[in-house]
């Protein structure tokens, strides 16, 4: 029987929700503040060895010889892994389009600085690193290709010699009558933008412990895994194992933001375990390794874009040409990242036609991976910057230009030209609220005053949509082998009434265990502190995906509701049998299964579970003595993309408008954030404190991307960033304490009306800051079209002008 998932909180079997919608304390926090959570490096196994990895110092070179004899002779060294082993035992990673994947460790040649070349397993990490110094590798240097221009030049060296080109993918999408709207436009605004590479940088790097069982030919990997089942399938493919012989145990993670998972590190540790007769091998990536070549470097992009407008400011068309430097291979799903803007290509606006020309290029930089937001943050910066240029040219207030173009609240569900369907929204309402919150008029007045004093003060008003809860068809748009994106949970009740929720993912920071406990406690009418949420390893877990694409809060809510609905059905049958009536006469309300109309007659959830587990004689025929239910939730109503990539790929569309005021210091190029205001609308807020945390965290990462962070490479493709001294993660001094408010326009189709909101402000903040900076520069006739708008870059701009 089909299970209906409640889309509103008033459909829950409770007279009033006690936990959902409240900023309840998180169940995960007491252990985290006590320092007792088992992050992977806290775990040791008997006989465990430690892995260290020798990495390429060259961006492009042929390996002509490797001598590991001295390393092997070092006391404490148990095994050394080279490309020869890897070629014999592995396949290149399967997550890239055919032919563009790497082995976990270089085979024959190196393609980027930081690529693993040799790995050692020893009795301590210290000895393993000593051993690396004894390894001799000889290289024949090859010319690197350092950027897309070089890579696409005729006769360029090939990053992948099995391919005839460095272009990984090139295609165009046309939605609507783009040529016509541009031909008929009263005004066309076009600009080029450069978004330099930034990255996730969670405070915990990747780590794992892998153990190869030689008798069973099976593999167990414990580690900081974001998407456990997906990781398991990937390891099975690259290590040539049946998928059911790979078990992934996901540990709590010190942040993720997209790139958490370490397929290369896992494969290397697994192979070292295989080489040491199955001893467990731990690999902990260090920060320098992460910064050189870890997961999470993202968005190395060159944009050429235009919007077409009518004289009244109506935007009719949007064209984007994107050249994306994917680095040395497409192993990190960069192709999907470039295609994700399809989910919200035209943002909050009624733009009727659009065009996207996508060229993904391989170079000798490190491969790129997903980072929070996964594609749209740079895209939004392009669209919103063009809106601001247009507003300036039309002498319209940027807020007003946006308002004129918003999709109206009555137009939902709204299908954007690129195919995705937005579920609901109230963009003008969000704008009104944030302008009021910021006291926009007086911000403009203070700006005018500052300008008369010669100060460079600017304001950004930026609106974005956050697509939430992706599905398999988001992969299918770019032809990458995908897997389904379900979320399965099991809810069980023990003989004392304690509730256990088993999920397939582990903690990463967003608070999904707490959301799970809130939902199950409200549904079953129990206290949150009777709920235990636990992670099942992949050998027993239900199909699941885990964190990604602003989906998990919504997905886990749906899964729990489904499981609880099933439990309710079973419990009603049991109670009806005991009370000698029909199941239809029994209802669940506030934690009691009771007779409709006679609530005094009934049993608590705990009593029913206890009865089921202890008195089989009282069970109705066909009911098992098992007060447990599983449910695997997927987004309803997904469809296949058409030839222009159009499909309903994301279930929900959250929205936000940010207002920010900045001042640029003429002497240093430093940007000071004078005020930062946010109004967002992500439907039902399951835990408002967690939503705010996601927003503010996204602001911090947006500040980093817009002003400070950059993976700098020199002209020879050598990375110049390898520590936090060079890669500037914002501290408490750089991140503004924002003023926030919100609207609630529930999703009509998502569980409890909640919309995905985990990526949050990173969609909006970079655009808002760049728009504010350009507003500040406008009186000088200057524009900054490159991120990060670092002090050096802005100083240069101001200085060159002078």
């Amino acid at each position: 029987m089909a299970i209906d998932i409640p889309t509103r909180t008033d459909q829950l079997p409770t007279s009033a929700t006690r936990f959902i919608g409240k900023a309840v304390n998180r169940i995960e926090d007491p252990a985290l503040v006590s320092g007792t959570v088992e992050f992977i490096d806290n775990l040791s196994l008997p006989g465990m060895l430690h892995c260290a990895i020798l990495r390429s110092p060259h961006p492009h070179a042929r390996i002509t010889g490797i001598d590991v004899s001295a390393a092997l002779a070092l006391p404490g060294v148990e095994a050394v892994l080279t490309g020869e082993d890897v070629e014999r035992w592995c396949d290149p990673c399967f997550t890239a389009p055919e032919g563009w994947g790497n082995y976990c460790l270089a085979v024959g040649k190196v393609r980027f600085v930081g690529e693993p070349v040799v790995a050692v397993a020893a009795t301590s990490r210290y000895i393993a690193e000593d051993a690396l110094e004894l390894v001799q590798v000889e290289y024949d240097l090859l010319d690197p290709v350092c950027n897309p221009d070089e890579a696409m030049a005729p006769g360029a060296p090939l990053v992948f010699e099995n391919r005839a080109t460095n272009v990984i993918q090139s295609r165009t999408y046309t939605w609507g009558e783009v040529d016509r709207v541009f031909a008929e436009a009263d005004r066309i605004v076009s600009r080029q933008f450069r978004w330099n590479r930034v990255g996730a940088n969670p405070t915990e790097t990747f780590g794992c412990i892998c153990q190869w069982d030689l008798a069973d030919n099976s593999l167990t990997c414990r580690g900081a895994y974001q998407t456990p089942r997906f990781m398991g399938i990937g390891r099975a493919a690259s290590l040539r194992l049946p998928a059911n012989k790979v078990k992934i145990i996901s540990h709590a993670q010190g942040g993720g933001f997209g790139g958490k998972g370490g397929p290369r590190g896992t494969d290397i540790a697994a192979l070292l375990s295989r080489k040491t007769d199955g001893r467990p091998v731990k690999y902990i990536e260090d920060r320098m390794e992460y910064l050189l070549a870890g997961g999470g470097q993202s968005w190395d992009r060159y944009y050429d874009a235009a919007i077409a407008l009518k004289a009244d400011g109506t935007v009719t068309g949007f064209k984007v040409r994107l050249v994306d430097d994917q680095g040395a291979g497409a192993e990190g799903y960069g192709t999907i990242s470039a295609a994700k803007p399809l989910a919200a290509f035209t943002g909050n606006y009624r733009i009727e036609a659009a065009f996207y020309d996508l060229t993904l290029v391989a170079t000798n930089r490190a491969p790129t991976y997903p980072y929070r937001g996964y594609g749209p943050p740079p895209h939004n910066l392009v669209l919103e910057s063009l809106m601001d240029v247009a507003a300036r040219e039309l002498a319209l207030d940027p807020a007003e230009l946006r308002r004129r173009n918003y999709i109206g609240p009555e137009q939902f569900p709204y299908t954007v030209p690129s195919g995705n369907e937005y579920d609901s929204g109230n963009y003008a309402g969000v704008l009104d609220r944030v302008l009021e919150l910021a006291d926009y008029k007086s911000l403009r007045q203070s700006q005018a005053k500052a300008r008369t004093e010669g100060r460079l003060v600017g304001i950004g008003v930026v609106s974005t949509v956050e697509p939430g809860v992706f599905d398999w068809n988001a992969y299918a748009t770019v032809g990458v082998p995908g897997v389904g994106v379900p979320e399965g949970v099991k809810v069980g009740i023990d003989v004392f009434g304690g509730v256990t929720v088993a999920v397939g993912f582990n903690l990463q920071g967003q608070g999904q265990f707490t959301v799970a406990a809130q939902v199950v406690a409200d549904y079953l009418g129990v206290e949150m502190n009777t709920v235990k949420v636990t992670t099942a390893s992949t050998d027993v877990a239900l199909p699941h995906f885990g964190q990604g694409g602003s989906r998990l809060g919504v997905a886990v809510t749906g899964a729990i509701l489904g499981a609880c609905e099933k439990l309710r059905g079973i419990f009603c049958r049991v109670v009806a049998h005991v009370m000698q009536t029909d199941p239809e006469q029994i209802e669940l309300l506030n934690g009691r299964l009771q007779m409709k109309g006679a609530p005094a007659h009934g049993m608590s959830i705990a009593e029913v579970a206890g009865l089921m587990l202890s008195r089989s004689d009282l069970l109705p025929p066909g009911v098992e003595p098992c007060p447990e239910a599983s449910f695997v939730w997927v987004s309803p109503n997904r469809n296949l993309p058409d030839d222009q990539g159009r499909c309903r790929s994301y279930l929900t569309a959250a929205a936000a408008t940010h207002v920010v005021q900045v001042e640029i210091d003429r002497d240093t190029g430093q940007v000071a954030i004078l005020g930062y205001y946010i109004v967002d609308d992500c439907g039902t807020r399951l835990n408002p404190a967690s939503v705010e945390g996601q927003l503010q965290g996204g602001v911090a990462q947006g500040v980093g991307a817009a002003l400070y962070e950059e993976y700098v490479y020199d002209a020879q493709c050598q990375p110049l960033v390898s520590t936090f001294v060079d890669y500037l993660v914002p501290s408490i001094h750089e991140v503004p304490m924002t003023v926030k408010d919100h609207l609630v326009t529930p999703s009509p189709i998502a569980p409890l009306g909640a919309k995905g909101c985990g990526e949050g402000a990173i969609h909006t903040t970079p655009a808002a800051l760049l728009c504010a900076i350009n507003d500040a520069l406008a009186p000088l006739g200057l524009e900054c079209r490159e991120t990060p708008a670092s002090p050096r870059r802005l100083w240069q701009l101001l200085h060159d002008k002078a």
Partner: protein
Amino acid sequence: MSNRKTIRLTVNGRHYEREVEARLTLADFIRHELHLGGTHVGCEHGICGACTILIDGSSARACLTLAVQADGANITTVEGLRNRETGQLHPIQQAFVDAHGLQCGFCTPGFIMTTLELLGENPDPTDEEIKEALGGNLCRCTGYQSILDSVRLAASRINTATAA
């Protein structure tokens, strides 16, 4: 081996005597020899502050300190804050929970130890003083706003408790 040395030190009120390699970092010693895993390591080059502990009452980076340098020291790590008997959280820890001052929690022990030092020296800090004190701790998740709230809350609770 000559590069090994015996050290004696107190960690969270317990005395330890261990022979360690001269090059062993204090972070590795605390984490992997004493099995106190709450002192996290985020960069190993002194920038992120995740490994912050107190050595003789002053905050220090365990990743930049060698175990042998801690010979004779009195060290406090995050594990030393909770009441051992009752499990009750220290007011600073409780304030981080109540004000949602953490997400992944990896940076949190470092922030808590820095806050412990701050409030010991300055029980009623201004926002600017809090920011100054926390400027050497990186958090990639929270955007710091709830951390600032947590420190304010901890200070006000500790002050109310002392006043009463």
